[in-house]
């Protein structure tokens, strides 16, 4: 079927719009971050409720009000809790109608609007090409960013709903930044006009393998951000505890949530993405068997998928190894993302293999 040029142009325009809205969201997040109060799960200032308690009484009414202790996750670090719901750790009311709260809400709304535009980019692209919108590197990259923003919104919502009310909304700028950069790169360096698929890509395995890879990559992006925030916060904690002087970027850490929570979020995000990435790699191997007769051939793309997989496996191991939990594990998570990026950009643009996927000539 011929390419629908009108829809293709619409898709390109929507991409510009999405980037602009995300950039705006980033600025507003940054404003909230800069002028806002400390994080609601700031340093362990508030006396943690004594080991949390649930009352063994009837229905949940009494229970709801009772703070439940944070777990002593794996036995490391001091327990950090919020006080009773409704009070920040600094004792100030949380849901005040301050300017920063309005800014935060506005940024969140902008993010959602950006995400809808972003969805529009993918839908119109798919409609223009009459196929799934991940037939080349440009489409892959914008899909990864879509999943990253979506995953961030899910993480944010879960944190806000969770027992400990650890709002991480004001950290949105740190997610918007890589997303806007990647989208900008995609729209310029990687941009490919809409074309139908070459026969090698024309398989339902494209749908299965690439969608799993897109989801895993997008979610890994979020883990990269939280691991980086953890490293900053951890440095901030170390320097302040030692009474040293803070230097950028450790200075940013003042408004971050507690390191412990960031560490746990990073783990949860990777624990979700890792099986998906494993599945994506296996689906790729099954497809390779059908297309090229071997399920694994150490093609550069396959090699880097393997390297990233092994690094994330090392991360999961590090978390269970004495002396590696925390800082070192977080560095491994950062390294894992670096491998993912090399696989996306380095392999497609610099090294070439059988995966003639980039669509760049």
């Amino acid at each position, binding site marked *: 079927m011929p390419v629908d040029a009108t829809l293709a142009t619409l898709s390109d325009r929507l991409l510009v719009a999405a980037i602009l809205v995300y950039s705006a969201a980033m600025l507003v997040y940054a404003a909230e971050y800069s002028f806002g109060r400390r994080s609601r799960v700031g340093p362990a200032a508030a006396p943690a409720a004594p080991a949390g308690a649930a009352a063994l009484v009837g229905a949940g009414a009494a229970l709801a009000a009772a703070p439940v202790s944070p777990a002593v996750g794996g036995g490391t670090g001091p327990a950090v809790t919020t006080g009773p719901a409704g009070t920040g750790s600094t004792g100030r009311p949380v849901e005040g109608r301050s300017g920063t709260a309005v800014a935060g809400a506005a940024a969140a709304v902008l993010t959602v609007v950006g995400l809808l535009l972003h969805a529009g980019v993918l839908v119109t692209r798919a409609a223009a090409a009459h196929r799934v919108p991940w037939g080349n590197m440009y489409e892959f990259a914008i899909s990864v960013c879509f999943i990253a923003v979506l995953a961030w919104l899910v993480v944010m919502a879960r944190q806000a709903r969770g027992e400990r009310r650890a709002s991480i909304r004001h950290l949105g700028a740190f997610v918007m930044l890589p997303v806007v950069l990647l989208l900008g790169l995609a729209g310029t360096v990687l941009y490919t006009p809409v*074309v139908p698929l070459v026969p090698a890509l024309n398989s339902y395995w494209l749908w299965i393998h690439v969608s799993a890879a897109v989801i895993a990559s997008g979610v890994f992006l979020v883990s990269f951000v939280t691991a980086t925030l953890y490293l900053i916060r951890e440095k901030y904690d170390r320097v302040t505890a030692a009474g040293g002087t803070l230097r950028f970027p450790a200075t940013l850490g003042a408004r971050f949530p507690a390191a412990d929570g960031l560490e746990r979020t990073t783990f*949860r995000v990777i624990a979700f993405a890792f099986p998906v990435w494993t599945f994506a790699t*296996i689906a790729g191997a099954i497809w390779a068997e059908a297309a*090229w007769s071997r399920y694994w051939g150490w093609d550069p793309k396959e090699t880097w998928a393997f*390297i990233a997989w092994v690094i994330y496996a090392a991360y999961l191991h590090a978390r269970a190894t*004495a002396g590696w939990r925390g800082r070192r594990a977080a560095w491994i998570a950062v390294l894992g993302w670096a491998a993912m990026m090399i696989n996306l950009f380095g392999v497609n643009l610099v090294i070439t293999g059988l995966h003639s996927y980039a669509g760049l000539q």
Partner: protein
Amino acid sequence: MTGTVSDLSTQPAPVAPPPARGGLVVVLRRGWRQLTSMRTALLLLFLLAVAAVPGSLLPQRPLNPPKVQEYLDAHTTVGPVLDRLGFFDVFASPWFAAIYLLLAVSLVGCIVPRLRLHARAMTTPPPAAPKRFDRLPQYAEPAVIAADPVAGAAAVRAVLRRKRWRTTVRTAEDGTVEISAEKGYLRETGNLVFHTAILALLAGAAAGVLWGWQGNVLLTEGNTFCNTTQGYDQYDLGQQVDGSDLPPFCLSLDRFRATYLDSGQPSSYAASVRYGAGDADPRRPVDIRVNEPLRLSGARVYLLDHGYAPILKYTDRYGQVFSSPNPFLPSDLVTLTSDGAAVFADANQKPGERARTRNVEVAFEGVYTPTAPESGPRVRSVFPAERSPGITLAAYRGDTGLGSGIPRSVYSLDQNQVQKGALKLVGSKFLRPGQTWKLDDGSTLEFVGTKQWAGLRVDEDPGQKVVLVASVLMVIGLIGSLTVRRRRLWVRLAPGAGGTVVGVGGLARTDADSYDEEFRRTVADLGRATAAQPVSAVED
């Protein structure tokens, strides 16, 4: 206290320092412990990742031998050193193998004791309750129920059983009843399944290397090949395979079809073949496409590439006719400009004469263009399909260096013969299909037309099924291992003044905050089931 945090850990318990005894046994044991420690596993994983990097940055022999040669030519000092160290075939190099074999051994040493521990954990009852619940990460304020401890315990146990907790009841001298409950054994089960599946995957991959084989054949429309080593242009058998193990079948190519978009981008390929078990006239028709191999028992046939085979009909000085399709190889994969040659080594021999006349062999070399441009140099095709085909040929006469034999198809002439002057250029010409070129000695060459050829890969990998099953188990095991949480719950029912005092405590190893919610729900359910009252309400 029994319910310590480390108790729930899925890692092997830290090992006590070995007794101070000298000797080889101690050294070996210490070495083994070192090898199977979590730290070593981590280190080996890192090494594996790092070792794979040069495999993607340097050209690799199995993927692209000419690129390796190019690299060696360009880097005359480092090149040979890297070559000796195996850097141009990283994934078959001894050092890469050493890393994954050590990892496999470490994995065995890790799995075996954990299997034993896990089996024991599954068969022994959950441990007794710690003395103080308020030190646990999860606990509920004590409450009072009217029922006596035994009856209350029965109600509690019923609730926990329904929620599929594994429970055990212990009764103390003073009438206190304690219920220990545990859940989430699937976490460790999943972890063990995952790690064991990695070993199975390695075994399957190894089996593929030992018992697998593959062959490549270029088949022109109308031709048949049979699955023997002689049938292939190039083949590679695993260590445990010899030629007689290849399953007998023959396959002929009837037609190859490619379709293109106007931009020249291919949109589909299909090779229509007939195949049959072991006979030279295969009958069963099937289309082989990209992503859709022909799967036979014991072999698979893939369509890898394709091209054109110009049919050249040479009529020599004596009127003898030689004709053959000559596969040309694409030099440009987008427009299918193709290079090739045709050698007529038996041409121009006087009929009936015994002695061989030398230096009258004829050969043609040239470029086939499926869509030759209207003007300008005609040696560059502008479109991959045959819209206005043409061939540019150079004719040579002399000694081709191929000796006598049937007209052979080669892809290029022996340039040594040309340089030596043994093979002389006679002339060159651009021909359209049906056109004939009259050479200086009166012989003629007609460009009859073209056939297409398909490059087929035939192979078998008997380890593949094992690898597939193992990788599915890996994903399932991983999901279990990363989503299930091992958690414990204790309920103590102590006889007191105003009734039975009930306390609840809980502990989860990983991701303890996600246990909060479940713990509170469970406590609420227990409260409802036992009609619990706050302690203070009773004391009033």
